[in-house]
């Protein structure tokens, strides 16, 4: 930091003056709830970064052992193919992985309780919820042993194998949850095909398939809301620099399962700033910086000018 920047920051802070102090329990409670919720994503990443630094050696060793082809005496050993890399880590995985670590085909990854992971899987996003165990069999195939995963990508022919059936996507966003004897596939966008026992069950956007050992039923579902929240929390950081307002809002809306509607707003305005945001933070930053307001109605993120 250059000294002249420090002077500018000092001048800004003096202009603003001290922030209002928490002076009673009610204010403290409200502020803590709002503030903590807002900062949760940032803090999780911060914790992960520091934790990552603290256990860097262990993680490096684990990464070397797990994600890099092992040194074997046999000269004919084929190198493993890298099929994914880590975008976001919340909490703990088994084996431990580092940010940006590469993942070779055939690798099992498991998230522990309260943890989540986001992978860039051949250009698509694959997120693992807590207590999830997945093997990346190739750039298009994965095996879900237990837990919850979310796929978001435009490529088709991705296959997720489970003990209760095989899920094939057709350019879409969907979640697969396997718990005990129940497989649930929820589709946000596009369509998926659940195949098992020679039968095929199609789920379109805003529907889910719930499969037990002997039956499959289809239900209508919401494509946004609290049940999808974990996906947003595991989202990779979003940087606004260079994006247009419309691009930024579209990315945020996609994480939330929403459409974007601009009302009297120039979506081509270009944004700046190198801070890594969660989707909520990005939405606040993008609209605050352009003096806009936003609201959500009927699965639509509506952005308009302030009056």
């Amino acid at each position, binding site marked *: 930091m250059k000294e002249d920047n420090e002077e500018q920051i000092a001048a800004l*802070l003096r202009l603003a003056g*001290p922030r209002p102090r928490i002076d009673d329990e009610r204010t403290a409670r409200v502020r803590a709830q709002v503030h903590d919720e*807002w900062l949760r994503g940032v803090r999780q990443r911060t914790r992960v970064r520091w934790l990552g630094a603290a256990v860097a050696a262990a993680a490096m060793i684990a990464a070397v052992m797990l994600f890099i082809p092992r040194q074997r005496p046999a000269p004919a050993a084929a190198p493993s193919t890298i099929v994914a890399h880590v975008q976001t880590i919340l909490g703990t995985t088994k084996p431990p992985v580092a940010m940006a670590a590469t993942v070779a085909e055939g690798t099992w990854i498991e998230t522990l309780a309260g943890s989540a992971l986001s992978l860039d899987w051949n250009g698509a996003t694959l997120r693992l919820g807590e207590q999830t165990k997945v093997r990346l069999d190739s750039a298009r195939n994965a095996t879900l042993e237990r837990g919850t995963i979310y796929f978001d990508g435009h490529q088709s022919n991705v296959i997720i194998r489970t003990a209760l059936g095989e899920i094939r996507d057709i350019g879409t966003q969907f979640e697969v949850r396997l718990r005990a004897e129940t497989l649930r596939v929820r589709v946000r966008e596009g369509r998926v095909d659940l195949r098992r026992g020679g039968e095929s069950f199609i789920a379109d956007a805003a529907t889910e398939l719930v499969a037990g050992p002997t039956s499959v039923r289809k239900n209508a579902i919401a494509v946004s809301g609290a049940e999808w929240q974990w996906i947003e929390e595991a989202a990779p950081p979003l940087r*606004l620099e260079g994006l247009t307002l419309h691009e930024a809002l579209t990315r945020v809306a996609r994480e939330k399962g929403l459409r974007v509607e601009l009302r009297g707003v120039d979506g081509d305005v270009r944004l700046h700033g190198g801070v890594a945001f969660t989707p909520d933070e990005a939405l606040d930053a993008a609209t605050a*910086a352009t003096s806009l307001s936003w609201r959500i109605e009927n699965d639509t993120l509506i952005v308009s000018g302030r009056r």
Partner: protein
Amino acid sequence: MVELVEDLPEIRAALDSLDALQRKETARRVQVVLDRLPDRYGDALEWKYIEGLSVAEIAVRLGVATKAAESLLARARTAFRDAFSAVHGAGVEA
């Protein structure tokens, strides 16, 4: 008026604000940015630049060594600058 440089146009623009309304809005944004920083960053910046505490005094409040407080302040300034630029400086290239 503070003498400004070219490398942070967002901050320069903010400080060049002419009327009370603009200053009030800028002040609000500064406080929003402070609230969004990690607690220790926001506190340390306030102690240093508003209350005028020395680095040694801030170190005592934080319960860390003076050197660590210096480092924390440097990180806090960087975080503040980036966050403020993101919130205040967006949106002029159509």
